[in-house]
């Protein structure tokens, strides 16, 4: 406990140096901005801004990227409450009661409740990361290749189970990602694979290029074909910014429950924040003595999912920081950023780079403070941004996406690749494939093959070693149970019901 406080103290000290504070600030502001703007998600933004962070030191870079991530979460809720448009998928449920409050002229109260619940949950989440991180890292230090391989299988299976849409399609996406990870020179044998004589492909596909294409360009194409007509939403008045005393009191318990649920679900690979906000809303509705109020402006229906998705956003850092396994596409990009800065994500980060680890944990808390302090007064500006018409927005996004893709390695070929993956992303969406698991497969592919190889060397080409080592067997069994559960009819309908809303 003393250790924990000492470490957190050091972390806060580092996070509060002016440079780091500045990048944290920049991150949360940019994050909120893109959370508010329609048609631009955190994945595309981080992929786009990744080259900018090349010039920074590792701590500043990761602090800023993390800020973008939870800032986007926050901005997404703002638009959900004000104009009934969830900026991020995880704020979809916030629309229900948050926007109902807006229609009653209580938008200010809803925004304040959302901000305070997020902040409280952010504190809980930061503590959870600080407590669980070192424990998990110690455990993971004893992992060997078989355990790592099985852990990655488990990670990919959870991503499949939690992806939107058909399980079969999600599995296909993961496999496609794994296949794409094979492009380039094989690290252990030097064989060039799927290069087809193109010198640009020798180093493999850069995940940031693939992500910009799939999520940045692909989403713009989908929007141009789909719903974005260019008409900007109209925003009513915000009203008094503070909730009444009774509203405040009745959101305390839901915030606590939402935080705990979010912390737990955030650990799961896949879409933790999304699932946890749905879960927290459903839980509050079930516990409430007056479930009829939900959907008509119940503050509990704002506090609980907001707390949950923010807590989940924080704890989703745990598998990334301690195991090197990304739990979602944003974390996958963070891993890429760490690798660019010469840090191999995994349990050794905590022992070899304690400053980095604790500064990141502390910066999450600092970022949450900044969000509350800055964003409530600034809400008017964010609202104005909502009224920027799409025909100005998407050419601008495209230009930044192109500059970003180009500057990753100053290669025009990367920009062409991004265009290609933009088309792929658009076609996948049109055919109802969720491209997020693909990115996860792409990121994990190389490490997975590597660990499988080592496993087979340890065991002299005997795959049963994966089932005879207890930890590895346990993870594979869990993966099997999850997969079977997702395919079985009873659970499948429940899963569809959760995502249907």
């Amino acid at each position, binding site marked *: 406990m003393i250790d924990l406080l000492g470490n957190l103290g050091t972390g806060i000290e580092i996070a509060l140096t002016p440079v780091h504070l500045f990048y944290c600030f920049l991150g949360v502001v940019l994050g909120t901005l893109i959370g508010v703007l329609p048609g631009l998600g955190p994945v595309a933004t981080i992929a786009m801004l990744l080259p900018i962070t090349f010039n920074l030191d590792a701590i500043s870079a990761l602090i800023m990227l993390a800020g973008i991530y939870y800032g986007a979460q926050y901005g997404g809720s703002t638009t959900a409450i004000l104009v009934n448009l969830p900026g991020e998928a995880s704020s979809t449920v916030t629309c229900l009661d948050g926007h109902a409050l807006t229609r009653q002229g209580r938008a200010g109260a809803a925004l304040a409740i959302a901000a305070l619940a997020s902040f409280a949950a952010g504190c809980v989440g930061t503590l959870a990361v600080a407590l669980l991180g070192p424990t998990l890292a110690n455990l993971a230090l004893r992992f060997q290749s078989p355990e790592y391989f099985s852990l990655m299988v488990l990670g990919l299976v959870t991503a499949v189970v939690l992806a939107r849409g058909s399980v079969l399609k999600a599995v296909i996406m993961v496999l496609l990602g794994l296949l794409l990870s094979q492009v380039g020179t094989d690290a252990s044998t030097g064989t060039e694979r799927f290069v087809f004589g193109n010198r640009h492909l020798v180093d493999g596909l850069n995940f940031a290029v693939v992500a910009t294409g799939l999520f940045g360009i692909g989403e713009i194409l989908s929007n141009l074909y789909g719903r974005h007509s260019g008409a900007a939403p109209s925003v009513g008045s915000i009203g008094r910014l503070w909730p009444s005393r009774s509203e405040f009191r009745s959101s305390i318990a839901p915030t606590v429950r939402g935080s705990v649920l979010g912390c737990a679900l955030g650990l799961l690979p896949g879409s933790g924040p999304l699932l946890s906000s749905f879960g927290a809303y459903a839980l509050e509705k079930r516990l409430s003595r007056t479930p009829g109020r939900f959907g008509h402006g119940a503050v509990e229906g704002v506090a609980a999912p907001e707390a949950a998705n923010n807590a989940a956003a924080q704890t989703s850092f745990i598998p990334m920081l301690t195991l090197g396994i990304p739990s979602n596409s944003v974390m996958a990009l963070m891993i890429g950023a760490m690798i660019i800065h010469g840090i191999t994500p995994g349990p050794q980060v905590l022992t070899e780079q304690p400053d980095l680890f604790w500064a990141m944990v502390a910066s999450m808390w600092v970022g949450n403070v900044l969000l509350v302090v800055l964003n409530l007064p600034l809400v008017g500006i964010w609202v104005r941004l909502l009224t920027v018409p799409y025909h100005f927005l998407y050419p601008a996004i495209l230009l930044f996406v192109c500059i970003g893709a180009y*500057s990753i390695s100053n290669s025009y070929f990367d920009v062409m690749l991004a265009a290609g993956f933009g088309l792929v992303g658009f076609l996948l969406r049109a055919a109802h494939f969720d491209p997020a698991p693909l990115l996860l497969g792409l990121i994990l592919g190389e490490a997975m093959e590597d660990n499988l190889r080592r496993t087979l060397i340890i065991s002299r080409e005997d795959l049963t070693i994966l089932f005879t080592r207890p930890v590895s067997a346990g993870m594979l069994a869990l993966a099997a149970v999850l997969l079977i559960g997702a395919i079985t009819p009873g659970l499948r309908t429940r899963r569809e019901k959760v995502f249907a809303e």
Partner: protein
Amino acid sequence: MGSPAHRRPTRGAVWSSMLQADVLAGLAIATTGLAAVVVAQGFRKGAAHEIGPAYFPSVIGAMLAVLGAGLAVSALRRNEPLSRPKTGAVSVRPLLVLAGVILFAALIEEFGLAVAAFALVFLSALAGSSFRLLRTAALLVALVAFASLVFVVGLGLPIRVFPT
């Protein structure tokens, strides 16, 4: 967008829409998987005690082939229009965005940011439903100025703004 959005699909339309979505997707994926397996057979074989470079891609490719075929078959056997594609028979106009990105890539090294951005911004603006010349020109000037300041001056990315 070309066809009315909420028309109840006839049986023929159902079949054709399935052909466009899951069946086509499944076939494309199965073909990709098979192709990967075939290409991987050309990779150097590994030594006796290690798995060679062909092992992993072959396994993944084979799984893709099987699952892709499974997706296509199950879509053919379904009768309801589960995944009607949003596109249908519509204009290729939004695809101008891709042309813009490719032109940007082709121009950026030779001619610098201003020219590349010109191609990108105008083509992508044309991809939208309401194109206006002056509005787009103003947007272009603002974007080039902003991007040059932030990326070239501020961050020092090695990108030229104007052709030399």
